[in-house]
């Protein structure tokens, strides 16, 4: 199976519920070891399932926790409780018992304190990491926006408006194209959202021949980075099956615009 299949055909969701064959699961695991995008996608799916599970949680009876904590497999690991017997002078015995008890009590006290501190530290660490993470998110967004702005103000980029065809007169898309660096950015905020089994596909037309410039979903917010294009007379967007087509289905053309070079 290919990367794209793993990302788009539900393999990762099926991996969460263990519904893949052993061979498929191994392939997914191989990709998970090295491929950052697949790792991120997998992490996001897991987090979504986790979020839903917490949202739709149900409380069991109180008694279940007691049954678990008192299960012999658990209780045998509870701390404390070892005792020894011996004989000797009564006084010495009494004294050593008192000393033992005192140290047992203080040992327990300090152990308890340590446990609490350990927990609190862990909680603070977790909160700290959460804060750092949201800082990173904001930082990332800021740098995304800076990047977008750089494209907008750069003299290297030409701005091409793609106007709606008869299929979608209201639609509009904007392309920022740098033919020297071959970079293509797309703003698809004014395209209608599509059913799940369809995606938009951008085409660059060179002497009337369409070249695939990448598939995308209508998204508001930042630009989408499309495939590199060095040469084009015009750009057009069609509606295709998810994953894109080899050649454009012209009857579905949504927007079209000529490159003024």
């Amino acid at each position: 199976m290919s990367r794209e299949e793993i990302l788009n055909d539900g393999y990762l969701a099926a991996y969460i519920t263990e519904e893949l064959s052993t061979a498929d699961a191994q392939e997914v695991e191989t990709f998970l070891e090295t491929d950052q995008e697949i790792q991120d996608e997998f992490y996001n799916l897991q987090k979504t399932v986790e979020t839903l599970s917490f949202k739709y949680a149900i409380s069991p009876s109180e008694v279940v926790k007691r049954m678990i904590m008192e299960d012999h497999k658990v209780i045998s690991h509870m701390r404390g409780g070892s005792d020894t017997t011996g004989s000797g002078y009564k006084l010495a015995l009494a004294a050593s018992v008192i000393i033992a008890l005192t140290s047992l009590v203080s040992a327990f006290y300090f152990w308890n304190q340590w446990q609490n501190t350990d927990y609190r530290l862990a909680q603070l660490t977790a909160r700290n990491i959460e804060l750092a993470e949201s800082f990173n998110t904001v930082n990332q967004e800021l740098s995304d926006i800076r990047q977008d702005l750089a494209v907008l103000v750069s003299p290297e980029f030409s701005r091409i408006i793609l106007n709606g065809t008869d299929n979608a007169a209201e639609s509009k898309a904007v392309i920022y194209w740098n033919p020297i660096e071959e970079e293509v950015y797309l703003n698809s905020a004014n395209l209608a959202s599509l059913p799940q089994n369809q995606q938009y596909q951008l085409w660059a037309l060179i002497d009337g021949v369409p070249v695939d410039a990448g598939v995308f979903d209508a998204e508001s917010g930042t630009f989408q980075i499309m495939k590199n294009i060095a040469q084009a007379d015009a750009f057009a967007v069609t509606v295709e099956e998810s994953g894109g087509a080899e050649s454009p289905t012209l009857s579905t053309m949504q927007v079209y615009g000529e490159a003024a070079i």
Partner: protein
Amino acid sequence: MATSTVDFNTLLIKRLRSKDTTALDYLYDHYSDALYGIIYRTLNHKEIAEETLHEVFMKIWDQIDSYDDKKGTLFTWMYRIARNRAIDARRSKDFKSSDKSDDITGFVDMFETSNNNEDYIGLSTVLNEIGQMCKKLIQLNFFEGYSHAEISENEEMPLGTVKTRLRNCLKQIKQKLRRDFE
């Protein structure tokens, strides 16, 4: 990006592996409701579901050494144990003879009957946007332990479509949630 709960969980896993019962106590308090939700919805039978939850936590306690973070988060690992145990319980002879049905008929939309957990991330709104079919597929597969094949047969939908749709539905939720954050 995956660091938020990772470090805390690393500590938790370490303590579970050293058989620290306070860590189990914490784990139970934190995760039992979420896991019980999965088990209960798969079985629809309080006593058997609670017995299964007990078994699930014993398995977590016994087999924490086999947890492998390359194959998923701690929650995913526990989720798989809970889901599989509940499915096994549903297939068992005792369960079948207890006059409980194990087929999909009698479907009740769990998203409509949610308890009032805090909706701080706008999940309810998002779920209202993703459509009935998405909600049903997610509930059947992720919360009621039905396989792609079982869903495919019941919904008269090709197997591949079930798989792809589930993924798209989850992804939609994630994207919409992110949008609401922004």
